[in-house]
């Protein structure tokens, strides 16, 4: 790992330019799909920070996405707050929810962590679902007032792309920082980490707070795209979906979840046209994945072509990838 080598950087730049040039060419529907992939990918990335790099079973990460989206929608729709305030406050509120729930969860390990997390997350869903006076319950909130300068089809696309890339950059910095490295060390061996003087729980909690902040950002972007919120955003099914995205893309890689999100959203969109049972295809894909690409799609490519780079992020599962 000797800093950024030029090639991947160039690749990213080219990709970005293509993405910037697309909206005038593409039909509106496809810009929408792409934007929706960015939002979902950001959410999956934030989950992967906890699951893939942190080794914590954050089963109900979608709850914080929902909290971010609802906070943003309510601040604008009910409290009539200015837009910029909503942008800042909503992710902070999501992170605060992450702090509250995470504070309890980090006291447990592995599956117990997951069970508690899914119950507390579902509690958030129940609140949103039941509290009619505030959230309109299962009707959701529609027509969130967002100026068309950022919410019209191609403007929303650019807006979302900008924040997606920005968040990705920040997450990448965190991933490679001592904090990120220590987080991965905790994933590998929490007992050893506490023996070298690392406060494991505090570190894990910090990771959860950061990840839920980004989930909140994804929630805000969702509202920018859809101008509405509904309780399904906090339902566990969505959390399962993004969990699958991480697995699908490769949860020990940095960018894997983006790929996983793209595959899943594309499947939902294009197979969903023909059958409402598109999850069936996803299920089959997942089974194939577990058998043939246990490291995920991205993990597979990194292993196969990634000559050294990102190697330690995605070694063979048997932990014996010789360098």
């Amino acid at each position, binding site marked *: 790992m000797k800093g950024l080598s030029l090639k991947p950087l160039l690749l990213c730049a080219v990709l970005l330019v293509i993405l910037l040039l697309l909206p005038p060419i593409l039909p509106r529907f496809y810009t929408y799909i792409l934007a929706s992939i960015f939002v979902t990918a950001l959410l999956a990335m934030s989950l992967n920070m906890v699951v893939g790099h942190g080794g914590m079973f954050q089963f109900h990460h979608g709850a914080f996405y929902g909290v971010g989206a609802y906070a943003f929608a309510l601040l604008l729709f009910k409290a009539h707050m200015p837009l910029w305030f909503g942008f800042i406050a909503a992710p902070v509120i999501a992170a605060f929810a992450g702090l509250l729930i995470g504070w309890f969860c980090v006291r447990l390990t592995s599956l117990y962590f997951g069970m508690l997390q899914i119950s507390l997350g579902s509690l958030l869903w129940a609140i949103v679902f039941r509290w009619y006076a505030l959230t309109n319950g299962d009707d959701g909130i529609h027509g969130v007032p967002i100026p068309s300068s950022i919410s019209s089809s191609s403007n929303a696309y650019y807006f979302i792309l900008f924040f997606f890339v920005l968040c990705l950059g920040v997450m990448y910095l965190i991933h490679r920082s001592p904090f990120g490295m220590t987080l991965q060390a905790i994933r590998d061996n929490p*007992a050893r980490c506490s*023996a070298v003087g690392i406060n494991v729980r505090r570190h894990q909690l910090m990771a959860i707070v950061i990840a839920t902040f980004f989930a909140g950002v994804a929630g805000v972007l969702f509202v920018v795209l859809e101008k509405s919120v509904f309780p399904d955003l906090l339902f566990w099914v969505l959390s399962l979906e993004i969990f699958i995205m991480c697995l699908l893309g490769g949860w020990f890689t940095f960018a894997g979840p983006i790929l996983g999100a793209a595959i899943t959203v594309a499947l939902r969109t294009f197979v969903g046209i023909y059958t409402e049972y598109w999850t069936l295809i996803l299920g089959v894909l997942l089974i194939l994945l577990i058998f043939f690409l246990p490291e995920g799609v991205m993990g597979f490519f990194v292993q196969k072509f990634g000559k050294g780079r990102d190697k330690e992020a995605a070694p063979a599962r048997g932990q014996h990838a010789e360098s």
Partner: protein
Amino acid sequence: MLKVENLYKSFDKFLAVSGAELTVDKGQLVAVIGPNGAGKTTLFNLITGMLKPDRGRVVFNEEDISKLPPHDICRKGIARSFQIANVFPRLSVFKNVQVAVLSQQRKSNTLFRPAHRMAVEETNRILSSVGLLDKADHLAGSLSHGDHRILEIAIALGNEPQMLILDEPTAGMSPDETSSTMGLIKRLAETHGLTILFCEHDMDVVFNTAQSIMVMHYGKTIIQGKPEEVKSNMEVQEAYLGGADA
């Protein structure tokens, strides 16, 4: 420097440690011996905070540390290695040590600086002092058993401890590896001014290296003293040095 006083720990009514006593003076190389299941590892886990004692005290530099969590005890200056190789298999050898060095420098929470440029010098110094520098880029999971054990020690050194606790540092090593590892440990003790507490099965190793030996049996301290004193102690011979077969 370290004093263990009348320590007790039970698991489901099984007394793993019952009345352990231990004194380690600054700069000493102290060994704990005893048959399998005598409670040596439990004792080390109690000292380093991985387990909480039911009764008794652990005093380090005049301070009761028996109720502190492991990371705080590490901060006080006690680092340890584990009996079962306990490293970060998915990280490179370099990063394994770097994690500890960064923790020592209180930089584990640094968010926006690339880790690969930090603490490089210190980490390399430690790796070269234990002879693992040429394997710095290898994944820890791919190391041989012997190198695993050495990496264990290197990670512990990353914390710049005053005292190093090694749980069977030569377990599973060939005689050659054992003697070179013990040589390394002695050398580290001298060059770093480290106080070292270790436990070991190989009696020759213990009596050749340690300046003070503590004998445990059924969780209890039988004797602690200089190697000659321990050797001549009959009770010990009964408990450990062949008394079982005789």
